Each structure stands twice: as structure tokens, then as C-alpha cells.
């Protein structure tokens, strides 16, 4: 099977600090992986690298994703620790934004956005601005924005960090449901052991290196 993403000897420095050291990783369709480790261990950086948002040394390729840049970007969805929404756009506009930027027309984007928000149980908050939503609702909008793009590789960086445990579990479940229903892979970076336990595979990160915990070969 063609892996969605493959990295070999991935390394990265921030100034004098080495934040990734020789990371080897391959993700296949259907993988659901938890990246655990303390703050500063390199989890977030590895996710950003897998999303293609950071320049890294070593080998990094996405064989199972479209090879053109816009296509690959569209196939990767990322949920950040804080609900990263455009403050001036409503929930439905925030969800429609990446679809519009990828060339979908106005009506189709709006319809997809409404559907995604309905999926995350926010059908009654379509026209609310981020400031009018709770932290949990904002994070669900961010998840809806990711899911509406039909990504093959889902990356979530501490997606429940700003949420209570119930909402956090709901968000992770939404992401898992999507992977199970339409395929792709999910990587969740967390320092929450309970959350990590929800996923079948776990890797531990320490000082920029990856140590296998469970379910990973």
C-alpha cells in the first residue's frame, strides 16, 4: 500500500536548539496515531513538518497524496491547539474560507460549510462570530473547517488543550469517525494520556526523537 506520508531522518533546528532529530515515520491509510510527550518534546513541530508547513532537513514525501502543492495542501487538514479562526468571519464563513480559496464556487462552499457545521452540532450557530462562541464551540468550528475539505491526512495539535474533557473527547471522536468513514490517517499530538489511550497507536517524543509505545512498527 502506498503510504500517505513518509519521512526519513527528519531533523530541524530552531537557532541552536535541535527540535527534531532523525525522525523516521510512515503513515498509511487507516492509521490513528497519538504522539505523546512533554511540552517542548517536538510533537507540534513534527505535526507542522508533516503538514509541509516547515522547512526541514532529511527526506519528507507524501506519496499517497496529490503531488501538486495546492492539491497536497488541500489533502492535509490541521487542527490547532487553540481554535484558530478568522475573528472577523462567522462560523460558516470560516468553514467556507479554505474551500473558496481552493476554487469552489460560492454556493457549493456555503453548502459544504453548513453541512460540516451541522455534523459538529453547530447548525444553530452558523452566523455567529468566533467571539460569540465558547472555546469548545470555536474548536468544533475549526474541526468542521478541516473536515469540510475532505482531507486524507488529519493532524491535530493538542486539539483538546483548551477544552473540558467531554468536549475534548467529542472532538477526537469526530476526527476518528471521519477517518473511519472516508479513509485517510489521523495523528493527534497530546500530553493527555487518557486522550492518547483513545487511539490505537502511540508514539512518544522526547528531545525531538520518536520512541515507539504501542501499535507502531
Amino acid at each position, binding site marked *: 500500500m502506498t503510504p500517505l506520508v513518509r519521512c526519513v531522518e527528519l531533523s530541524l533546528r*530552531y537557532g541552536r536548539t535541535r527540535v527534531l532529530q532523525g525522525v523516521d515515520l510512515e503513515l498509511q491509510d487507516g492509521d490513528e496515531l497519538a504522539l505523546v510527550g512533554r511540552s517542548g518534546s517536538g510533537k507540534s513541530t513534527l505535526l507542522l513538518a508533516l503538514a509541509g508547513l516547515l522547512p526541514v532537513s532529511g527526506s519528507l514525501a507524501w506519496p499517497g497524496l496529490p503531488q501538486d502543492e495546492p492539491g497536497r495542501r*488541500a489533502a492535509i487538514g490541521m487542527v490547532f491547539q487553540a481554535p484558530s479562526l478568522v475573528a472577523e468571519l462567522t462560523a460558516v464563513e470560516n468553514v467556507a*474560507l479554505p474551500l473558496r480559496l481552493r476554487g469552489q464556487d460560492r454556493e457549493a462552499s456555503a453548502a459544504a460549510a453548513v453541512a460540516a457545521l451541522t455534523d459538529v452540532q453547530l447548525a444553530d450557530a452558523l452566523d455567529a462570530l468566533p467571539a460569540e462562541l465558547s472555546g469548545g464551540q470555536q474548536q468544533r468550528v475549526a474541526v468542521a473547517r478541516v473536515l469540510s475539505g475532505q482531507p486524507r491526512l488529519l493532524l491535530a495539535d493538542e486539539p483538546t488543550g483548551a477544552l473540558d474533557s467531554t468536549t475534548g473527547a467529542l472532538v477526537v471522536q469526530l476526527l476518528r469517525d471521519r477517518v473511519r468513514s472516508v479513509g485517510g490517517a489521523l495523528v493527534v499530538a497530546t500530553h493527555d494520556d487518557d486522550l492518547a489511550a483513545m487511539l490505537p497507536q502511540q508514539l512518544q517524543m522526547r528531545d525531538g526523537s520518536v520512541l515507539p509505545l504501542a501499535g507502531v512498527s
Partner: protein
Amino acid sequence: MIFRRPARWAFGLVRRSPVTVLGAALALAVAVAFVASLSSFVVASRADLTTRAAAQVPVDWQVQLTAQGDPVSVTNAVTALPDVRAQAEVLRAAVPALVSSGKAGTRTTGQAQVVALPPGYAESFPGEIRPLVGAKTGVLLAQQTAANLSVVPGGTFSVQRPDGTTVDLTVAGVVELPAADSFFQVVGAPAGAGATAPPDNIVLVPPDQFAGLVGTAPVVRQLHVGFDHAALPSSPDAAATLIDQRANNLQVSVAGGALVGDNLGATLAGARQDAIYSLLLVLLLGVPGVALAAVVAALVVALRGQRRRREVALLQMRGATPGAVLSLVAGEVAVTVVLGSALGLLGAALAIRLALPTGASLGLTGALLGLATGVLVALATQLAPAAYGVLRRGAASVRDAAAGPATTRNPWPLRIGLDAVLLAGAALTLYLTSRGGYRVVLAPEGVAQTSVNYAALLAPALAWPGLALLVWRISTAVLARRTGRFARDEPGRAPELEAASLRRRRQVIARGAAGLAVAIGLSASTAVFTATYDQQASLDVALTVGADVAVTEPPGSAVPPSAAGELATAPGVRAVEPLQHRFAYVGPDLQDLYGIDPATIGRAAPLQDSFTPGSTIAQALTDLGKTPDGVLLSAETLADYQLHTGDLVRLRLQTGTDRAYRPVDFHVIGQITEFPTAPKDSFVVANASYLAQQTGSDAVGTFLISSSDPSGTARALQGSLATTGAQVSDVVSARETVTTASGLAAADLSGLSRLELGFGIVLALACSGLALLLGIRQRRRALVLLASLGATAKQRGRFFGSEARALLVGGIVGGAAITAVISYQLVKVLTGIFDPPPSSVAIPAAYLVVLATSVLAVSALVVVAVGRLAGRAGPAELREL
């Protein structure tokens, strides 16, 4: 000890963010440099005013002995005064008439003044006597007297003594007395008695001949005194007060033995008013500039406002007291003040060197005022917001402090309609002050001290904030209606989302647009005002000279109009216009009379519609051309003699071969307030052909020349006319010395214009660049988010570009509107310093184009370059999401 922590914090900031510190220091430096150079200009111009005002006075004091005065004790008292440079005893007395005989018969004048001047008087008091023809000593006749008697040097005339006998004299020379008004003043006349006209007939004689000529006539005995002007205080105010008090002291010390005609004090009092005008000019143009410099500084500080709020919140969360936090911020302020002041003073020295005339330098007063401004701006823009945040908000959460809520609600000044109130107030004030004739500087009758009519300044003071708020209101109203529905919906674009973002950020954008509009309005209205002032100052100089170049024929010459052909061959000459100059009695007043060809005078003479109130200059000249015996009279003459258009007016002119004054009929066709070479009070303009026909002479007084190279033409003519006695003057050399109506020399005014316009453009560019930079900074998170969502650099640029476009359009359109209103108000309110008043404002097109182009270029640069950089998702930014 207490400074150690703030110092460490401040130096840590310098190490971590040198660009931020330098930016804040540079913004302060602009304010410091602006105020320091402007203040230095004010100090230098005030000193210059004193020097030039004193230099205009040929005789500083005319100390007149009273009936009980003892000449010796008064002379001793004057000698004992400080700084006396020269003193001379001058005697004068009136005789019944002067008489001359020639081929055309006998000519007898009216009463004449015989004046005894000691040897060396002309050298001691230069400017009092100007030799025209013949010798400089001996028996001298005033120009008009020589013309009345029709005598030239070497000729003879008789003085009729009070006892009826006559004494024959031989004319040694003919002179002009440029300051005859003050020379023959009635010393000690009660206030409000009004000036007396100088006598028509004057004979200057050596003292040994005086007694034999005046016989038993009452003699006026004066001591003319000149002081060392270099010893005067530099401020006109202080100099006027010093001379005033010195005069009082003398009058007390001679115990009523003498009265002082204080010409120097009167002139310095006039300069005191001029100084207020020049100060007002600087203030009206400078205060908005300082305010804008403070806004620029605030914008720079705001660039790191978000980070500062986070840092303050973190410090407070870790237990720092408000005092401790503020002491750290004060450390930052101290670093920027020191650096900004040093850079600002260097900038001021450079600006003064580049913009102001040679000799101007950065003075101590200017430097101290600049430093004070720097400290105040830093406190207002850095410490005050930090203190507000610390004391008012308390310990905010780090994220709350970073986010800063956006609002679509209008700020309270707009909600209560403050813009409408301010603009209505400005309009009302302008209307009310216009009814009073826009007198910005008041000099109440009998009060030595002049004062500023601050009510007249209220109109622009209210209009500035009113217009800024109006731009804000209109910008928000327009942005609130943006839907993007009509924009092209191309793949990869999201016009409806861009519009939604604009709608919800309309307050932020409108605030930036209002700031930019004020910056552009300040630069452009200053440019329009100074261009208008410069235009009128140039016109004033041209009116004084007469044209680009003027050739004034010597008295007694009879150069015909045909001589214009020869002058026209000089290099650069475009047109030559002969101007007849005569004297005519209007009732008992002797006035200057100018004979012109109405059809062609405009080819060489500087003319404006404002010269002929109630008509255009073209219409007035057409009317004059159609009415051969028509005359244009001054407003004063029309009012004093109750004359109206169409009335017959009988003037007395020298006619016939005997040059005797005879009545000539004219018809009034209108009013004229200014004319090239004419005095500012009363004069008459008539048709040259009619004058030549009635007087029997077409002799030209002055040739007015239009030239493409006034200096070159003047040089060439000075060479070719050297032997004829004609005087050649030109506008270029006159501009260096002629004082404009505000009391500023034209050359100094040009320096002020350069200074204002230079800083104006720097501030406008800084404001536009910083407003956009701040917008990008505020949207940086959104731009990084867009990048993480897969938006290309082009898409990110477009998303922010729509905001930048809205800000620029609002700023430029608003700036144009502010320019129009403020320029109009400035010209109206300061109309008193325009002489002549302008018929329309001057538009400095080149400067405005440069300003608009620069603003657009800097904005484009900021949007493209910084927008691209800001959207670049670095590790730190991505982790912040």
C-alpha cells in the same frame, strides 16, 4: 539601585528588538526635529525682524526742544544716553513761498520749509536723504519742489522771507526725502491727531545760511539721534519696550525741556505685531504637524502594543505590582527618549541647514523645546497607555491581552454626533469672524501691546477634529455596505468573504483612513497655504519693483514711450510697457498718478482681480480703455470725497510749458487698491494717451519689463543704461530684501515653506506606511492562518490588499476634502497676512503629485513586501495558532 531593574529590562529590549526601539526612537526624532527646527526658525526670524525693522529707521529719535528747553542740557542728556551712535542738531522754519523765474515766466510756490542740516548729516543718518542729481551738499531742493520751480542744479530761485524780502539761492542738487513723513512729523501731537502730510516744498541749507533765510519765522529745533542697533534685544517686543522706556527716561531727565519723536519705538512696535503674525503663521502650520508627529510616534508604539500588553499581563500574573511594571516601561521610555532626542537634534540641525536661509542655526531655545516635545510625546504615547492598561484593566489573561476585541460599533464621538457639532461650530465661527473682517491680530487704539484674537483661530481648530471624525464616519458607512456581491467571482477568490472581513473591521480601517486623511490634509493644506502665501509674496515683490524688471527714469528726464523698443532688445525680455508717473492734486491731497495703456499694460505688469474690488481687473481695464478721461481711484479717495462711478472729478495736474498746476476733468470708472510701483494708500490710474494730451508731455516715469530671466535682463540693462541715470531693479534681487506682509522676509518665508513641506511629506509617508504596517501586524495571525489553510501569497495579499485599498482610498479622498476645507479656512482666517489678498488659492500641483505618488508608492511597498513577509508561516507563528 531602583534603576537597576528598569535599566536591565530596557537594555534587554534593545538587545531583543533593536528594530522596534529604533523605530520608536525615529518617530520621536521626527517630532523633536520638527519642533526644534521650527522653534529655531521662530527665534531667528524674530531677531531678523528686529534687525530689519530697526534698519528701516533713518533717524531713531527726533528730540524736539520745547519753549522752555535748554539746548545745552538737552544735548548733554542725549549724549549721556547709552548706545548713542550719532546726534545732530536740525533746525527748520516755514517761509511764505519760493519763487523762480525762467523763459516760461515766474513760478511761485505755496508755503515752504527751510531746513538746516549740519555737515555730515547724510552720512550719519543714511536713508534720510537720497541724492538724485547734482551735489550732495550746499543748497538742496526736494524733487517735487525742483519740479514745481522747474529748476535744475546750477539754476537759481528765491526764498520769500516772512518780512516780504527775498534771498536768492543757487541750487546745488536735487534730493529725495524718502522718510519725509517722519522728518516733518509733529512731535508730541496728541494720540489720535493723525499723521500730517509732509510739506510740498522743501529747501535744505547749511546751518550758516539758515538764519538769514527764515528771519523772524518760528524755528523748530530738534536733535536727531541714532542708536547702535546691534545693542538692541533680539525680540521686537523687548526692543520696543527698551526704547520706549529710554524715551520716557530722557523726557523725565530734561524736565519737560524736550519731547521725543520716537521713530524707532514706533517701528519696533509695528514689528511686534509682525512678530505675532509670523508666530501665528508658524503655530497654525506647526501645531497640527506636531500633533501628527505624535500620532506617528503612537502608531510606531502601537506596532508592539499587542506584545507589550502580553508582557505586562505576564508580569502582573507573576506578581509584579503596577509600580514595578510601570518602572520597567519607564526604562523603555527613557531609552527611546535619549536615542530619539539625539537623532532628532541631529535631524533638526540637518533640516535647518537644508531648508532655512544661510545663517540660521539650531539655537538653545529650539533644542530645549524639541527635547521637551520628545519627552511629552514619549510619555503620552508610551507610558500613558501602559499606565492605563496596568491600572484600569488589572491583570488580564495573556490571551485576552493579545487578542484585543474588534468592534463594529462607532466610537462615542461619532455616536453623539461630535463631528457635526465641531463642523457646525467651525462654520459658525468662520461666518462670525468673517463679519468682523478676519482680524487675527488686534491692536486696540491707544494700547501699545498687540494681542491675538483667538476666536478667529477657532474655525480651523474645530474643523481639524471635525473633518477627521467625518472621514471616519463616512468610511465606516461605506464599508458597512460592502458585500462583494458585484465583484468578479473568479476561482480562488472569495470577494464576499473579503467584504465580510472589511465590514467587520470597518472601525479599524476607518480609524486608519482618518489618520491618513489628516496626514495628507496637513501636508497638502500647508503646501496650498504656503504656495498661496509665496504667490502673494512674489506678487508683493513684483508690485514693489513694478514688474519682473523695472527701469525708472531719473527726475526731470523726458524719455518718450518709443524708448521701449531699445529696452526690448535686452536678453530675456518678453514685453516692455511704458508707465507715466505724474503727481495730481485730488482736492488738497497730492497723489501719485499713473498713465497706462489699458490694452497692453497686462503684458508686463503683475495684475490680479483683487486689485479692483467689485470687478475683475480685465473688466476694469476694458472700462478704462473705453473711457479716455476715465480714472480708477483708491477706496480712501472715493470715500473721503464721496465719489461714485460716473462722477466727474477735477484733478490739478502740471500742464503746459510753464508746468503750472491746472484743473483737468476726469470721470470716475471704478476703484483700485493696488498697482505696480504705486504707494499702498492713495493713487490714481488713468489713460496715458489722455494724460499726454492734457499735460503736453508723454514722458515715461518707469518702463515695466516682463522677462524670462529677470536677473540677466537687469544686468544687461544696468550696463547699457549706466550713463543715463536710470535705475534698474528686478524681482530676484528684491526678493532677498523685501519684507512680506507677515513681517517675514520673502527669503525666510521660503525657508519656512521648505521646512514645513519637507516634514509634511515625511509625516504623511510615515503615517500611511505605519497605518498599513499596523494593520498587517494586527492581521498577522489571520495571514498565518490563511497560509496554514493553503492560501497562496497572492491570495493572502489580495485578502489584505482589499483592506489596504479601502484605507488608502478613504485616506486620500478624505485628505483631499480636508485639504480643500482647511486651505480655504487658513487663507480666510490669515487673510490679514496676505498683501495683496489673493483672488484664489494657489495649487502647488507638483508637490501634490509628489505627495500622492509617494503615499501610494510607500503604501504599495508596505502592502506587498511586509504583507508577504507577514504571511510567511514561521515555526513560532504556526505554534501561536
